[in-house]
């Protein structure tokens, strides 16, 4: 017993050490922008980009300079990109565009004595034999010729003309511009980082992921010997700093939220983390380097597997929990991770085939659809499958089995919530007010998702089948790219990621599923009104103890139904089965059965006077 406790402590220490090392790795090594790095990063761009960028870097004194931390380095890169873009625009302007002098000449020739006469002849006389430039300006401004348009004031003409020229210059420079966004900066940082970690990725992989897995498994598996008798062992959950919003929970909360913010918005600060998993990435494709999404995928799978093992041990007496946990692990590892990595090796889109609309909010974006259409018959089939999944499989399965078939058996978000999030399930808010808030968030988000899908889908349809109708990509005055971006930022990143997972230790493990997920809303409506699924209450056996409500991750006040002898039929129930598992009196059972009598409000519970029950329950 004592040895096991020591071993358990060692496991915990190893795990904490691995987390500590993982955090420290962010500050290991330095960043150095060399010519090689620039070549490497912009290998798909033209030679001119590389040479100009190198030149600007050299002028700024950044080239080859070692910078100790990712924060200062990325500050440098931000200014560098700005300067580069200014320079290349200027260069191109001189080369291909119109110089100030040329513009003034055109103005002089056009505006004579207050009269404006602008025609192709003006251009020909200014540019002489430079037919390229004549063509360029002609194409852009022929609508301003005096034969078609009458300018009353010189200022108006000048204004229109200058604007047009700015456009021309900009579009000339377009192909050379570098966007100052997280992707560019991530690529630069990833190539620029040097140091011990980059030299010994496998070693760090062991020190972080390796130690973390070993430590947590030792901790979890020794628990089996300390609690050798199977059963519900929620002992001390509300006495622990980790699971009752104590200081441990606050630390985990801080870590998770920071992680999601870095992952979604500043991946260029965490290139070292992605370097750690490079050896795993190259198992799929030799020499490939891991992106932040690959890192996330690995972390996701590792967390789910380790915490899934914890679930297997915790619920070893409960077959429903074991089968369900095995199922979410299967779908995460095979569908959400491996297939996403493997499909592109066969020139197919690397998508998660179990991800149904509207949880998959990029389903009808032009790039996604084009990616499928360009990938042959199989690619097209994959697109059709997504449609079938979302519009036929989802509702039919919800009718037969309730939304649990997805939320608790298949879904990745649900899978993480049910494994990594299990220690936090009791933190969900059970109050009536929380239920009200839930309905005011999840359904509007579903409506938002539908509107976004229509606008984006219409734009995609035009792009693919009707290019002349694309216009400015708007429908009902809503821009397709804009709404997609806003949705992705607010719902996809902030809600699903930062709040949904980051807030596990504070708000419980299903915040996203309960308050945000549009797919959950969609399935919930079907589950509530047209489904065979319910949680049956066993006659009059409830003792109102409250374990069911406490451990409902969706914040359903299960007891409120059970103590009235009433079945639980709720849109939000994800069918995790934990209310039934923790019930000390065998009162609750998840069932699929006839729709008749599914909703059975009772005033008098089974076991009392038969006449009274008839009298009050039938009326």
């Amino acid at each position, binding site marked *: 017993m004592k040895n096991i406790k020591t071993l358990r402590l060692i496991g915990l220490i190893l795990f904490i050490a691995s987390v500590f090392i993982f955090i420290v790795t962010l500050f290991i090594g330095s960043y150095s922008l060399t010519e090689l790095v620039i070549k490497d990063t912009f290998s798909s761009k033209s030679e001119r980009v590389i040479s100009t960028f190198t030149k600007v870097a050299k002028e700024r004194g950044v080239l080859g300079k070692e910078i100790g931390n990712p924060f200062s380095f990325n500050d440098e890169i931000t200014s560098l990109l700005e300067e580069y873009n200014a320079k290349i625009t200027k260069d191109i302007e001189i080369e291909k565009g119109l110089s100030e002098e040329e513009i003034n000449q055109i103005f002089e020739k056009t505006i004579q004595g207050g009269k404006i006469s602008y025609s192709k002849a003006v251009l020909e006389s200014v540019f002489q034999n430079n037919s390229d430039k004549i063509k360029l300006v002609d194409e852009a401004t022929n609508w301003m010729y005096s034969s078609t348009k009458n300018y009353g004031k010189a200022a108006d003409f000048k204004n229109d003309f200058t604007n047009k020229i700015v456009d021309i210059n900009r579009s000339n420079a377009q192909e050379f511009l570098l966007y100052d966004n997280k992707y560019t900066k991530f690529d630069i940082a990833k190539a620029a980082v040097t140091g011990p970690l980059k030299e010994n990725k496998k070693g760090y992989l062991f020190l972080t992921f390796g130690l973390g897995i070993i430590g947590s498994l030792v901790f979890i598996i020794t628990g089996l010997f300390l609690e050798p008798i199977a059963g519900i062992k929620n002992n001390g959950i509300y006495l622990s700093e980790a699971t009752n919003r104590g200081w441990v929970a606050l630390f985990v909360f801080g870590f998770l939220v920071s992680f999601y913010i870095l992952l979604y918005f500043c991946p260029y600060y965490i290139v070292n983390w992605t370097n750690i998993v490079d050896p795993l990435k190259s198992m799929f494709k030799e020499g490939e380097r891991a992106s932040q999404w690959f890192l996330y995928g690995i972390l996701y799978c590792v967390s789910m597997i380790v915490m899934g093992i914890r679930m297997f041990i915790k619920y070893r007496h409960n077959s429903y929990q074991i089968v369900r946990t095995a199922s979410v692990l299967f779908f995460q590892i095979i569908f959400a991770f491996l297939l996403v990595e493997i499909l592109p090796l066969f020139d197919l889109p690397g998508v998660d085939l179990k991800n149904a609309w509207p949880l998959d909010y990029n389903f009808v974006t032009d790039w996604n659809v084009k990616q499928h259409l360009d990938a042959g018959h199989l690619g097209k089939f994959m697109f059709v499958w997504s449609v079938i999944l979302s519009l036929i499989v989802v509702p039919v399965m919800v009718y037969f089995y309730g939304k649990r078939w997805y939320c608790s058996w298949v879904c990745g978000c649900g899978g993480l919530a049910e494994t990594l999030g299990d220690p936090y399930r009791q933190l969900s808010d059970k109050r009536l007010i929380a239920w009200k808030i839930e309905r005011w968030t999840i359904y509007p988000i579903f409506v938002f998702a539908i509107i976004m899908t229509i606008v984006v889908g219409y734009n995609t349809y035009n792009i693919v089948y009707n290019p002349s109708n694309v216009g400015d990509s708007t429908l009902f005055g809503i821009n397709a790219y804009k709404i997609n971006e806003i949705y992705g930022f607010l719902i996809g990143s902030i809600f699903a990621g930062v709040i949904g997972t980051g807030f596990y230790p504070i708000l419980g493990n299903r915040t996203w599923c309960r308050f945000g997920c549009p797919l959950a809303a969609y399935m919930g409506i079907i589950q509530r009104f047209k489904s065979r699924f319910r949680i049956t209450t066993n*006659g009059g056996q409830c003792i109102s103890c*409250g374990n069911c409500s406490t451990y409902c991750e969706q914040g359903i006040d299960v007891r409120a139904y059970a103590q009235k002898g009433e079945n639980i039929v709720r849109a939000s129930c994800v069918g995790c089965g934990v209310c039934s598992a923790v019930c000390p009196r065998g009162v609750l059972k998840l069932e699929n059965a006839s729709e008749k009598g599914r909703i059975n409000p009772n005033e008098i519970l089974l*076991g009392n006077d038969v006449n009274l029950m008839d009298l009050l329950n039938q009326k």
Partner: protein
Amino acid sequence: MEHIVIIGNGISGVTLARHIRKNSDKKITIVSAETEFFFSRTALMYVYMGHMKFEHTQSYENHFWKKNRIDLVFKRVEKVISTENSLQMEDNSILKYDKLVIAAGSKSNKFGWPGQDLKGVLGLYHKQDLEVLEDLSKNAKRAVIVGGGLIGIELAEMLLTRNIPVTFLVRETNFWGGVLPEGEAKLIGRHMLEHHIDLRFETNLKEIISDENGRAKAIVTEKGDVIECNIVGLTVGVSPNIDFLKGSGIETNKGVLVNRFLETNISNIYAIGDCAEQHEAIGYRKNIEAVWYTGRMMGEVLAQTICGNKMQYNPGHWFNSAKFLDIEYQTYGWVWAKPKSYEKQFYWEHKSGKIAIRISYHKETMEFLGINIFGIRMRHEFFDKVLTEKKSVDFVIENLKQANFDPEFYKHYEKEIASQFKNEFPTLKT
């Protein structure tokens, strides 16, 4: 507007109040000295074990009471002045009523043992008991629990979660031997040993010994064994909490005596729940039923009477449930520890020794009479119907699968049970 005052905010009183509110517009006041709001007494153990917070044991949010116009008075009732239709409270204030319902519950039994009032000695019934236990648990080396019933094993389970070793004194030769037949009692006994509970059968408490500070430091058994301990749990049953009724004119015995309409000898005073005592027992039931379910049922029925639809307390088929550490127990109908003359029993136990059922039936008519179930969940509705329709034992064995209420993917035992039944009773047609 008629004013209904209910003493006690347990399951009986609160059920009554809710049902009166559903059916009428009467003014309702609930008086309690234990807690301000209703909580589930059965869940106190989970608070101590850290499964829940105290607020989770409260079935209704605090705003529920105001919304349903149920007034709560958090005071102790000193006495009932029935001649003046009023209650005198601890602060000497007076509360007038038109109808009074006594639903004051129980208190833990103490049988006059020397040292039973020392510090460190407690029952487990009230919220205050839990607070005392929490305090005692710091630095406790061992606990001794006296009395082999449901509350005793709950207390043992609680203490084990805080790594406090438990010695359990049981008067009978088996655990809960007065209620459980030998097979089941032994099954639970084995499970307790597996949890390292130091079980002492046929052992009675003689006295509790004090240390110099008036704290319990050891107990002595009737056999003369001395067991050192810091906590002594007295869980030898409960009895009605009716001391405050002395001199009120309300007729009492062990509990408040009531007829089948739950009326006392005074026309506008009723009693329900743990503290009510039937003049004559109903069927095989006890005169005083200190059970969650019966308390609730009395509340449901009395609400009808008070709202003008006079109705007898007429409980249906007996049922009950409990959880012994990790083993769930349900019972429907009557299965006697010592079979009655007309009764025959069939017992099946799984080889794991943790799952079992016992079916009782009439040896001549073959009518199914009741079932004890351990480690399998079964449907209340199924057995209620079977008992009402007086089905035969072989009908039950044949249809046992319909009764199963275990979660999906659980192993089923109906075939194993049926085949053993067939072997033991080859003459039956099953």
